[in-house]
């Protein structure tokens, strides 16, 4: 009796584990097309990872509902990289051995950079949400960005602040993590090309919470503009403490400052008037954005934001390319992605040899915690 129970349980177990494992390797041309979504689902950066996954899932579910790719369904599998490059490289090897045709993610430039060589060798196209200029510098034919690089963000910002508004006294505060240092270098470069040197240039660590010392030094220079190069939460903390210290400068920065997280962390009053450079200012900025936001809200019961939008764009581009190749991966798919011209949520996608598809951002101003296009005011 006991033996039969064991036998039944064993049979059930093998039956359970079977489908996901076998369908991909057995029927390449008939089974579902396997796409991996690799993003942090745990740890410090998991909020980005969750947003990204929601955007990707929305696009894939839509495509599957509309009949998939030439009748084949898309199988989207989510992997957790914990925001850790080492975990990322392990996952890159895993997906290349398990027959995935493409990879979407990650939101962390550092993780994507670590995975890029493996995916290039395995000929698996990767559409990433990272925006470090280092990603473009790789010039990998299998790596694509779904957003502009920091260079574009900060050049647009400098153009607005210096050329249009004629601000001269600009201070910087940025963290020395992958994102912050990219922002720092790109913005300094843009200032230099306009013959400006910042009146203060403070560097903090990504984990730092108390900025009294750095901000007191900045306050002494009495800058007109304070450029913040940090992620959402840290940007918010810097803005809050700067106002508490009586720094009157206008805050300016990249996409993180267009988010709700930034505005609520800083406090709505402190965030008011912040200048942000972003390809996706708000859900209300375009009709396509509005439609996306409605679908997103219906699917997840929460408001859409930049990360979901760019992940949605990335996934849509991949699906469009897959339709052209008939579900085939490798070099053919990479070429097809390069060929996609899409009027996306973030703008006009037109991939160059560096894998960058979007070449401009927009300037927005924060009002009541929401970003509005600067021209409208």
């Amino acid at each position: 009796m006991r033996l039969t129970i064991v036998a039944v349980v064993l049979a059930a177990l093998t039956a359970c584990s079977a489908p996901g494992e076998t369908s991909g390797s057995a029927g390449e041309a008939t089974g579902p097309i396997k796409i991996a979504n690799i993003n942090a689902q745990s740890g410090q950066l998991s909020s980005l990872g969750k947003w990204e996954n929601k955007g990707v899932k929305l696009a894939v579910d839509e495509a599957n509902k509309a009949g998939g790719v030439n009748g084949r369904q898309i199988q989207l599998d989510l992997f957790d990289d914990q925001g850790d490059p080492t975990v990322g490289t392990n996952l890159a090897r895993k997906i290349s051995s398990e027959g995935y045709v493409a990879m979407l993610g990650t939101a962390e430039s550092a993780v994507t950079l670590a995975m890029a060589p493996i995916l290039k060798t395995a000929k698996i196209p990767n559409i990433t949400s990272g925006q470090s200029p280092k990603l473009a510098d790789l010039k990998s034919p299998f790596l694509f960005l779904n957003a502009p690089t920091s260079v574009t963000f900060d050049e647009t910002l400098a153009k607005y602040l210096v050329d249009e508004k004629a601000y001269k006294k600009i201070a910087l505060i940025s963290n020395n993590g992958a994102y912050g240092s990219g922002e720092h270098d790109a913005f300094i470069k843009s200032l230099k090309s306009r013959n400006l040197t910042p009146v203060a240039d403070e560097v903090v660590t990504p984990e730092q919470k108390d900025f009294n010392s750095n901000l007191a030094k900045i306050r002494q220079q009495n800058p007109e503009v304070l450029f913040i190069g940090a992620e959402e939460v840290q940007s918010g903390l810097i803005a809050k403490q700067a106002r508490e210290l009586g720094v009157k400068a206008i805050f300016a920065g990249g996409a993180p400052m267009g988010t709700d997280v930034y505005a609520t962390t800083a406090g709505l009053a402190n965030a008011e008037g912040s200048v942000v450079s972003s390809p996706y200012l708000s859900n209300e900025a375009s009709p396509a954005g509005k439609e996306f936001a409605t679908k997103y809200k219906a699917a997840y019961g929460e408001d859409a934001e930049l990360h979901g939008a760019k992940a949605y764009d990335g996934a849509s581009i991949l699906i469009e390319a897959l339709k052209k190749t008939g579900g085939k991966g490798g070099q053919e798919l990479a070429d097809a992605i390069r060929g996609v011209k899409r009027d996306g949520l973030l703008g006009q996608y037109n991939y160059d040899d560096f894998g960058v598809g979007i070449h401009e951002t927009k300037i927005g101003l924060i009002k009541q915690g929401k970003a509005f296009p600067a021209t409208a005011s």
Partner: protein
Amino acid sequence: MQVFLQTLIGGITFGAVYALVAMGFSIVYRTMGLVNFAHGSVVMIGAYAASTFYMASRVPFAVAIVVAIVVTGLIGLIIERFLRPLENKDFTLMLIGTIGFGAVLEALAILIWGATGRAVPNPVATEPLDLGGVRIPTYSLLVIGVAALATGMLAWFLRRTKLGAAMQAVAMDHEAATACGIHVGRSNAMAFGIGACLAAVAGSLIGPMLYVNPTMGGTLGIKGFAAAMLGGFGSMPGAIVGGLAFGLLDAFAAGNFQGYSDLVTFVVFALAVMIRPTGIFGETTVNRA
């Protein structure tokens, strides 16, 4: 001078919170000889509990803190109850147990509140005080005041009450304390409970200063632990001095060493511990491991 004084304000505010976290580590260590690695996560739960009640039910902030203390106090008791069978049997397993509880609490927080975290509005939304160009946020004063109050109450409890005296006795010699009729298990539970209550106070206070998310306990835990070591692990005055010292060290390193501030902070910390392994107020007698 202005920069110096402003740095001081920031350092003391964060130092007060580190001191509270350090006291939580120390009270468990001096009673049981155990480092409670789940402590950082308990701080995080405290921050979530307080902010949830403060923001959702709009109760006064002080009431929210009390609720958070009750919630985390219970968690402390539960952790101790799980670890009790191992007491004096397998110390390493107990340590790993606390690490495990930390991971469990973090996972629970993600399940209950989600991974994205939340910003907590400032409960005393008034203009900062301006003293000759040095700005002191009113909330910083509140943080320092509450931390001092909690410290005072703990000192009174340990010195002036029978239960507190019993805990001191267990800390000194648990076998002799047992012989005197003191229930060591209950004393341990009390230590864990009080440690968790301190974590709740620290968490509630830090919430409006930072951003509450499931992983916030990591850094706070490490810095609080380092502060406890610096002051002398197991010593209550040591935890306070260590916390403030660590806060100030952190603040001045940030201003002077920019991106290398973490490196400098922990190198100075390592040197201090090398020169004086027992910390500033180190008591060598509490080591039961």
